[in-house]
């Protein structure tokens, strides 16, 4: 009996140790470094330093704007795709498989793919000039065209990151008992009424976890932006990388990491509060 009582703890011990060594410890270390300046004083010197940097506001603005545009678009797209998939009888698995291919591609590779499409001598320009829409391949992916850069990153991010939301929503829809929808039909509710009053509210737990996961990933966007925008479109993660590896100022890099974490915590808290799932519905 005694053995049985401790068994769960034995089983989770390895993962706890792993998390402690490779997550908790670096986490505490980053915190300590963020609040220690290069001359050893404890304080906000690192935060002042990144705040005064020319790239601070552009990178914060780009990251938040990107998250604000990409995540809602992905949610709407993924809900639509999930609704379509769940109504399919034949070929459902094949379609799901195809839609989730981008999940298996690293974000760096995704960036390279989209760069190959969008650059001056890329597939898009070659196609457009082949069908005589444009005279010569134009270079529009440059710093003078901030909107085009932003749009390119949005398109690449939607292509790359919608699948993860889709997978969560599809499994969530599978959990909704059919009886509710059938009851709605019996009482004469239209498709839209059933979607708004039955499916989406029942899907709330899945939407919540998908939003949290996707937003956290969006705040950490890096490789796709680096490939398409380079230094023309600084984001928080690229600034973290640069402060650590280019300028070799670990304290400032740690300050950026702490900032990203703070934003993540605030947004996650917001989702938990406003997409609150009542206990009995869990």
């Amino acid at each position, binding site marked *: 009996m005694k053995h049985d009582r401790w068994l769960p703890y034995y089983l989770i011990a390895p993962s706890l140790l792993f998390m402690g060594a490779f997550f908790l410890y670096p986490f505490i270390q980053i915190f300590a470094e963020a609040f220690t300046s290069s001359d050893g004083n404890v304080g906000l010197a690192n935060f002042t330093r990144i705040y005064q940097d*020319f790239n601070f506001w552009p990178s914060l603005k780009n990251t938040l704007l990107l998250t604000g545009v990409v995540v809602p678009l992905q949610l709407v797209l993924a809900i639509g795709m999930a609704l379509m998939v769940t109504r399919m009888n034949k070929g459902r698995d094949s379609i799901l498989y195809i839609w989730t291919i981008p999940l298996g591609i690293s974000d760096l590779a995704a960036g390279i793919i989209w760069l190959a499409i969008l650059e001056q001598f890329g597939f898009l320009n070659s196609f457009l000039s082949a069908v005589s829409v444009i005279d010569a391949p134009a270079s529009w*992916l*440059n710093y003078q065209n901030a909107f085009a850069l932003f749009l390119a990153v949005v398109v690449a991010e939607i292509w790359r990151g919608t699948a993860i939301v889709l997978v969560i929503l599809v499994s969530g829809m599978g959990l909704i008992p059919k009886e509710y929808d059938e009851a709605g039909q019996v009482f004469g509710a239209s498709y839209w009424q059933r979607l708004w009053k039955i499916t989406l509210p029942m899907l709330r737990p899945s939407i919540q976890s998908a939003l949290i996961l996707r937003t956290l990933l969006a705040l950490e966007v890096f490789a796709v932006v*680096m490939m398409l925008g380079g*230094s023309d479109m600084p984001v928080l993660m690229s600034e973290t990388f640069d402060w650590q*590896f280019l*300028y*070799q100022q670990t304290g400032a890099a740690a300050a950026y990491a702490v900032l990203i974490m703070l934003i993540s915590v605030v947004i996650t808290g917001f989702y938990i509060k406003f997409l609150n799932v009542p206990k009995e519905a869990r």
Partner: protein
Amino acid sequence: MRKMPTALALLALLGTTSALADITFFSTQARPLEEAQQMREIALAPYAEAINYMPQETGTFLSRLEAEKTSPDGALDLLGGLHGELGSLTPSILTPLNDLQGSLADTGISKQYMTLGKLGGDQQRYIPWMQATYIMAANRKALPYLPEGADLNALSYDELLAWGRNMQEATGSPKLGFPAGRKGLIHRFLEGYLYPSFTHSVVREFRSDDAVAMWQKFREIWAVTNPRSTAYGFMQEPLLNGEVWVAFDHTARLKDAFNKQPDQYVAFPAPAGPSGRGYMPVVAGLAVPANATNPDASRRLIRYLMTPEAQIRTLRATNFFPVVEAELPDDLPASIRMSGKAVAAQSSADDAVLSLLPSGLGQQSGLFNKIYRDAFVQIVLRDADIEETLDILAPRLQTLINTSGAGCWLPDPPSDGPCPVK
């Protein structure tokens, strides 16, 4: 069952490679796959002992050395890196190599380079290994648009601007190019070429009137520069695909263009400004980590790499020129012959202004480059006020120089204590 022998063979192979790889050569140079392979096959193969050549990105290279410095048994035997990279390490990581000075004295290494290897101290922390510099390259299609009376080998920044304008008018698109992308070396252009050419300085005159005039001129030049420049890393790529006709870059980053189409390109010295023709040689060095397990083997390898024969082999592999006196054979690739001439013309020009790589900055060298890149981004790309930007950056430049305690380096005249920003 059939998989067993293959697996065993693989295991045996792994076993032998790690047992044979006696000397681990960790380097930030010859990093692209092809170059690393040439380094192994051309430069290192003739050496009697087996060498495991491991190229690594600068950031990881430095982090690993800093992380392993307290370990008693280092896994690395020899380090290869640029002056600035080795200089940004904690000096005690590199074992003093003073004992090699004597045997290398008559090889023809420049005294200035040997002094650089002391990283501002008394001990020889690295041995100068190979050198390169930055030059200009042009597609022959661009030559008809040279402004009248301009001599390609003695160009001025005004003529470069006029040339860029002519090309833009004739082709409808800007044909000048600079490596201003994330992996590009535009900061070296600013520190070693533009600033010395206009102010005969890089630190002291950072915000002088001459510097303001320089930034104004560079804004004009940028107006006829391909805006994709902020994405360029190695200029050989936009040169080869025709996006750019005239470009500035490191010789090793122009190499492919010269080798693939030697008849299509010309190499020539960087332009001159009111203060002369600023140019910056790049020196890479060899160092031995203080915790290397077999420092004698490391020193033997350094002696081999410093022989004229090995230096020529390294030149073939990396396009970096020898630092010792060595007869250049006739069968060298086009890129070496072409850039070799331009390098010689640049350093022997009457108005040449020698600028050294920033030295003595240690951990601050990344931040130093950031100051110049920030100035470029703010003034040229974001159109910020020149004087205001320089006034914001000057105190930051002074702070980081004070932190490192670096004295002035060429072309700035020597200073007592940290180099002052006027």
